[in-house]
């Protein structure tokens, strides 16, 4: 029983990571109908930005909460700019081409960041400095660290924050309009270029926050860290219904729980297969995902 509860906590912690990244996938898809495969790599860049910032601020072995907040915001700012640059130079030129072109471009950007990262950062895994004191809370026999708690908390806050932005603000309305019909939104006087740039900036900043938070809990970072995590987060987004913000959250948590569940059995080495098995299943059974619908949304 204790073990089961602990595994559920483990699964939630892992799932919250996927959810945080899946939110970025889903948002870009929601607006542009583009699967931004480079998203996982922006997450990697976020972790590395945080790594360098933390070292520059002397936070290695010198934990401080304000310092950690500065690092997180710095990494988010850097990645927001990177996200906008990627959009401007990689996706915008092919925006009016068939969707497949953009998809292939996204894969190209992803590979560029991964292997460019190996050139710049080196292929050797690095260890993220411990910016906040690690604490373990025990409830009965169930343990959770403050970092994992933080990830779960941030994922939930971000989900509600995004829901609010998309459904309750002016820019959110513009995003939905752009998503509905780019040409018509333009005719209605919406600066769609700016809306799309904003979407990328927001999504990339979230990925960066995710990168820093995850690196706090699982400190090993390397240029390929976004590959597998990004793909699993993508599956989480598809499972929840791509384009749906609560769906990304639910999908992420489900993938995390399933992966942990399998790791707990004798088949632990198949843990990476879980997400992809789910992807195949969901595409066959319910391509729209759990929260997805094929109905037309009224703006």
């Amino acid at each position, binding site marked *: 029983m204790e073990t089961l509860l602990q595994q559920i906590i483990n699964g939630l912690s892992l799932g919250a990571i996927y959810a945080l990244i899946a939110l970025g996938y889903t948002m870009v898809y929601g607006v542009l109908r583009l699967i931004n495969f480079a998203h996982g790599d922006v997450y990697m860049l976020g972790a590395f930005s945080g790594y360098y910032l933390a070292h520059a601020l002397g936070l290695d*072995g010198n934990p401080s909460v304000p310092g950690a907040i500065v690092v997180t915001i710095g990494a988010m700012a850097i990645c927001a700019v990177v996200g906008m640059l990627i959009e401007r130079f990689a996706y915008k030129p092919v925006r009016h081409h068939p969707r497949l072109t953009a998809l292939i471009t996204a894969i190209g950007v992803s590979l560029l960041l991964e292997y460019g990262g190996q050139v710049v950062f080196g292929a*050797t895994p690095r260890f993220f400095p411990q910016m906040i004191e690690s604490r373990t809370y025990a409830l009965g026999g169930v343990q959770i660290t403050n970092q994992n708690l933080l990830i779960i908390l941030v994922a939930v806050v971000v989900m509600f924050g995004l829901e609010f932005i998309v459904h309750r603000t002016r820019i959110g309305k513009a995003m939905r309009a752009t998503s509905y019909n780019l040409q018509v939104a333009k005719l209605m006087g919406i600066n769609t270029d700016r809306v799309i740039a904003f979407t990328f900036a927001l999504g990339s900043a979230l990925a960066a926050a995710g990168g820093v938070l995850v690196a706090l809990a699982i*400190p090993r970072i390397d240029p390929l860290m976004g590959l597998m995590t990004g793909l699993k987060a993508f599956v989480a987004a598809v499972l929840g219904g791509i384009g749906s913000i609560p769906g990304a959250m639910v999908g992420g948590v489900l993938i995390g729980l399933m992966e942990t569940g399998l790791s707990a059995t004798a088949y*632990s080495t198949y843990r990476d297969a879980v997400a992809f098995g789910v992807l195949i299943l969901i595409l066959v059974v319910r391509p729209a995902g759990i929260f997805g619908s094929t109905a037309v949304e009224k703006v």
Partner: protein
Amino acid sequence: MKLFPHPVLRLLVLLGVVVTAAAGCENRTVDDGTGDIRVGLYASLTGDGASFGQSSLEGAQLAVEEINNAGGVLGGRSIQLLVEDNQSRPEEASNAVTKLITQDRVVALIGEVASRRTLAAAPVAQRYQVPMITPASTNERVTELGDYIFRICFIDPFQGEVLAKFAYNDLGARRAAVLRDIQQDYSVGLTESIVRNFTALGGQVSDPISYSSGDPDFRAVLTQIRAQNPDVIFATGYYTEAAVIVRQARELGMEMPILGGDGWVGDALANGREALRNTFISNHYSGDNPDPVVQNFVASYRQRFGREPDSIAALSYDAVKVLVDAFERAGSTNGPAVRDALATSSVAGVTGQLTMDANRNVSKPAVIQEVTWENGAVRFVYRTTIDPD
């Protein structure tokens, strides 16, 4: 996707590959007896195993410099060390060795540390009859690949026995759990030996739990181990994952001793930080050994590289010394002659007496070290020495 769509083109490419490979065989000329002696070192200078690569490079460099400064070998010829990085990937290890042999024309090879990469590269050396000494690959099969493959470290059946004995006798453990890296021959071989020896002593071991190199999160498997409440955990993989395993085990409130092999020796182990308590490893040598041979090596290494040598550096240093001894006794750098000389090596090294047996292995004692975290650094504290039977 087809890389070469046209059948004729494909044939041409194939032909090109065959011709190049054949040329590689023919062009291999014997050392003409003058100039520098070219020795190849292939190592994981980048990637997961970068710490291994760096240490083995530095150890070899120090030995080469000492030998050259002392007048060289074979009547004053200097050793030239040619280095190839394999990015911690087995397929790159065999490419690196092919390049060192066919293009750089090395007469002998030093490498690798990780058994998986040595296993990938050794058949190439064997095919070209270039003697290879692995400083630290402990998997049993490495030297079974051919009579040109030598090693100067103990093997995993012995290392597993040492760890099992220490856990059973010194720590009083009766029930154990094992975590192994399914992608690494080293970890799989070591696990097998630990299970066999611990069971033979009368202990109980649950089924080994597997993970893959690069896995970032071990909470799920550790939670399963926690439910079994073992007296000790053996983590038989390499240092990068070992650090995370130890840390997450402690986060889950598991305070039992965690034991590992020589694969724990690497810079990233430091990431375990305060969680590195009650942890022990088997190792090839201990830097706090008062033997002057060891202390001289430690002093010159520290002076040259500004840090403490680890066991990989010490073994790599010894590997070069053994090789040079073989050059001298063979009187040439000719492959078969050096091979024959290596087979009868007996050199007093930093890591102990290196006497080659009929299987091209050496029989050496192992030390048990306690791993601790003190003042922001990992320390390996000598506990005991366990001799082979």
